[in-house]
């Protein structure tokens, strides 16, 4: 049989020490009846190979005081957050919190992590391609035509933090190395932004006043009651 990449046990643990299946159920699962049938009613038996002489191993210096229990395997995969029905690709969203609070922004797609991918577009209101959580956003009923935008290569990994940290140990280099490499946005990200925004901006300019709408920020004014507003 070809070696499996992941070891799947036939008898999963309910509690450490207690398997899910009984002895007789395991006999059936392992197919011992089939092996016996192939071998004429008896389990195949071969002579033990002579063990080559190994140098005697030293007994370990340290034995743990208590038995260390193996934790149960957790195979649960959380599903991505359910997208509100009011949020569809091309919806204009209002960001409620963070650096860009109050900004009206275009929704592109939901990423596999559940976060929403949005863009300003950058030229219009300074919001770059960004991820945002659904709970911190209000969906308006304004939609933008998003058919010309290709968002396939944008993924959660694209937005993840870069894990490059080389530890240099040299006093003279310390101060220089710290000053370099602080938040320099790589050129490819700027190009991706321009690519995505190009067709978006065209569809935005086709609608009267939409550009100014996206450029302006949302704010609550005196007498505005959010529970009565229709977004």
């Amino acid at each position, binding site marked *: 049989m070809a070696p499996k990449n992941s070891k799947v046990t036939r008898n999963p643990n309910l509690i450490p020490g207690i398997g899910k299946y009984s002895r007789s159920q395991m006999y059936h699962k392992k197919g011992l009846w089939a092996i016996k049938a192939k071998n004429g009613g008896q389990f195949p038996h071969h002579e033990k190979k002579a063990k080559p002489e190994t140098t005697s191993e030293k007994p370990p210096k340290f034995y743990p005081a208590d038995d260390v229990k193996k934790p149960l395997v957790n195979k649960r995969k959380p599903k991505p957050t359910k997208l*509100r029905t009011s949020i569809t690709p091309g919806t204009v969203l209002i960001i*409620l919190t963070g*650096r860009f609070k*109050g900004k009206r922004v275009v929704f592109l797609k939901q990423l596999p992590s559940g976060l929403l991918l949005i863009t300003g577009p950058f030229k219009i209101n300074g919001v770059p391609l960004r991820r945002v959580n659904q709970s911190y956003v209000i*969906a308006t009923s304004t939609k933008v035509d998003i058919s010309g935008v290709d968002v396939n290569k944008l993924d959660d990994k694209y937005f993840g933090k870069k894990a490059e940290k080389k530890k240099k140990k040299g006093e003279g280099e310390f101060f220089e190395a710290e000053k370099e490499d602080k938040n320099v946005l790589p050129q490819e990200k700027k190009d991706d932004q321009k690519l995505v925004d190009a067709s978006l901006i065209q569809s935005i300019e086709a609608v009267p006043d939409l550009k100014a709408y996206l450029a302006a920020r*949302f704010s609550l*004014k005196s007498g505005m009651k959010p529970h009565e507003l229709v977004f």
Partner: protein
Amino acid sequence: MVKGRQGERVRLYVRGTVLGYKRSKSNQYPNTSLIQIEGLNTKEDVAWYCGKRMAYIYKAKVKKNGTHYRCIWGKVIRPHGNSGVVRAKFKSNLPPKSMGAKVRVFMYPSNI
């Protein structure tokens, strides 16, 4: 805080006033505060605000985290009575000096 924008103050919260603690005639229960949110007049209006987070912001003499302003976070739990008053629970109980002070009721976690 980035000071890129000059003077663009957006208010994305509703103003609220702390009325006091949840109480009966002669006993009060400081773990829950009563908040009067601007513009809310009936129990039915409050349903939109249930679960929304709020912040009680106050100033102190000593700078913490680079600022004199401090904050206690909390959220709207349920309506209180028929006239739009709301019960709120905070991460730590509100101090008595907060009675009559302003509280910011945000619009998130949003459900619109």
